């Protein structure tokens, strides 16, 4: 779906400083070579299977299905992967690619800390140096993940510029990359940024929908009626959607973080409230003011707290192939608690946005319909923050 300049319809592109142009060109050439290299693919599959624990399970949530009384609900258990989220799929791919390119150092941005932990993990495994940029605000919200990254040997740099959240961590990682390119790969964590990142990350995450398809055909002998996933930058969602894009009968639903509501300023729902712009290397939709200043977005979820969305999602929205809905903090927290009680699965607060929509949608569909919800990560990291949201005085 991409053309030469990495466009998805009008979105995407390479809006970056000249200093980085040869680096992204080199990355694109290396990726185009290795993606068809049998040895690279053998090594990556081995890492995904033996190290990360793939394929992840497609679990029939029977109690949830019966309780909601509508469509049959399956959960794609990316939370069961090593490091506890889908982020490892992309990171193992990029780290292996970086190593083949002769890079010895990985830098990354992180919001909730899941991508940072995954990058630190891959760096430890492959004997690479690792530096993670994390908004200072997020280092407080996700203190345990900061410790985890340090334990894995990574350096964590709290970012104090701007709103001290995910967008600022991305900006700082980009700045760091312009300083040091020759030995460093920027292991971008989502389907965003300049081409070729949205394509590379999507390809590495597409294993999610490849498996859903195989597992669904095996269990039900047919494709699902809907696939639901949460969207910040959009990596687990594009991974969940990608192999269904041509199957027009499968509804693809992305769940954005509405924060305190899309009619408030405290929201991160880009497609619902943003407009077309150019930022962080790509043309896409962004939350911004009338002068093009990027808005300080808000969500209870550090991983969805980003003012933009990946260019392929923007395109899927434009052409009407995917739907995007906004889920509030309250709805996500309710879903977090609901899945914990009903199925004994504590989902990440990010994934809880997708679950919240499934809770709304399932009862409106008949019992012969099937929906798949991607549980992108596990919720251990969120317990203290959710407890505080409910008024309990718990700190990590």
């Amino acid at each position, binding site marked *: 779906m991409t053309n030469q*300049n990495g466009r998805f319809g009008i979105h995407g*592109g*390479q*809006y*970056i*400083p*000249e*200093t*980085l*142009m*040869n*680096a992204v060109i080199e990355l694109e050439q290396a990726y185009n070579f290795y993606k068809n290299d049998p040895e690279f693919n053998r090594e990556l599959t081995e890492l995904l299977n033996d190290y990360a624990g793939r394929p992840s399970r497609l679990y029939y949530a029977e109690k949830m299905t019966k309780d909601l009384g509508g469509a049959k609900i399956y959960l794609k258990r990316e939370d069961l992967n090593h490091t506890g989220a889908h982020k490892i799929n992309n990171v193992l791919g990029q780290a292996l690619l970086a190593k083949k390119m002769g890079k010895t150092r990985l830098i990354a941005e992180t919001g909730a800390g899941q991508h940072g932990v995954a990058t630190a993990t891959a760096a430890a495994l492959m004997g690479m140096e690792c530096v993670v940029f994390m908004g200072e605000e997020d280092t407080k919200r996700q203190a345990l993940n900061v410790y985890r990254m340090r334990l894995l040997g990574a350096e964590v740099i709290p970012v104090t*510029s*701007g709103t001290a959240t995910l*967008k*600022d961590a991305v*900006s700082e990682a*980009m*700045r760091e990359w*312009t*300083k*040091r*390119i020759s030995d460093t790969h920027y292991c971008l964590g989502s389907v965003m940024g300049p081409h070729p990142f949205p394509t590379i990350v999507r390809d590495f995450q597409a294993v999610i929908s490849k498996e859903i398809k195989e597992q669904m055909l095996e269990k039900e002998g047919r494709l699902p009626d809907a696939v639901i996933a949460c969207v910040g930058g959009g990596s687990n969602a594009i991974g969940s959607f990608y192999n269904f894009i041509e199957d027009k009968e499968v509804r693809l639903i992305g769940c954005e973080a509405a924060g305190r509501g899309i009619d408030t300023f405290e929201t991160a729902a880009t497609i619902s409230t943003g*407009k*077309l*712009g*150019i*930022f*962080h*290397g790509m043309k896409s939709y*962004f939350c*911004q003011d*009338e*002068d*093009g*200043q*990027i808005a300080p977005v808000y969500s209870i979820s550090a991983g969805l707290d980003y003012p933009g969305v990946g260019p392929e999602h923007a395109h899927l929205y434009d052409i009407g192939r995917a739907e995007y809905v906004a889920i509030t903090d309250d709805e996500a927290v309710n879903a977090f608690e609901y899945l914990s009680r009903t199925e004994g699965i504590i989902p990440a607060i990010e994934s809880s946005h997708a679950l919240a929509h499934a809770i709304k949608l399932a009862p409106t569909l008949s019992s012969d319909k099937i929906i798949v919800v991607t549980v992108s990560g596990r919720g251990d990291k969120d317990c203290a923050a959710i407890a505080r949201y409910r008024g309990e005085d718990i700190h990590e």
Partner: protein
Amino acid sequence: MSNIAKAFENGKAFIPFITCGDPDLETTAAAVREMVKNGADLIELGIPFSDPTAEGPVIQGANIRALKGGVKTDKVFGLVRELRTDVTVPMVFMTYANVVFSYGAEKFISTCAEIGIDGLILPDIPFEEKEEFLPLCKKYGVDLISLIAPTSENRIGMIAKEADGFIYLVSSLGVTGERSEIKTDLSSIVKIIRDNTNVPCAIGFGISTPEQAKSMADISDGAIVGSAIVKLLEQHGTAAPKYIGEYVKKMKDAIK
């Protein structure tokens, strides 16, 4: 011929940068007049952006101060209109793609032409994406300035061949900000530029002392200084124009 060429008619050009509205637009206007009085050949006016990814901490700070002070794109246009009542040296805008895009590219670029802005520097528009704004820049006679970096290597000729106004040669890796030493082999980059174009070439990023400015101007057509000037604003606030004037004089004298 581009109006920007005038900047290179008085020996080596000294090109100061200032973020508009840091700390307020009156101070910016006073600072620009001091720069011109003291020998600045071309003024780079920064329109603040919330997330300036090519800037180091000093200019990031200026962007934040300016936005907190309530600067809007229209107010910057107003500033330029006022300056053009007596300031005749070439002036260019330095900002980010989204500031131009969100304003409406045609409305932004035609306004630039109307108020006397001669060029646009957009660090997040590389050669591959220049079609985003180049046709409109050509239509209204505003030069879209090309940047060349130490990592450009095989791209230098391609970029130089199509350059307009002047070429902004980035001295070293990284973001804007002062550096104690500039180690890049810039002479060999300038040579490739010269082989491909007659458009003048000025060097920026990391220059703060008269000695650095002189050594950069010696191998090119001029020196660009941003962070060192923004630092004076950070230190002296509304009293900064006087100090900026003195600084510009010292720098221009060094490179003449």
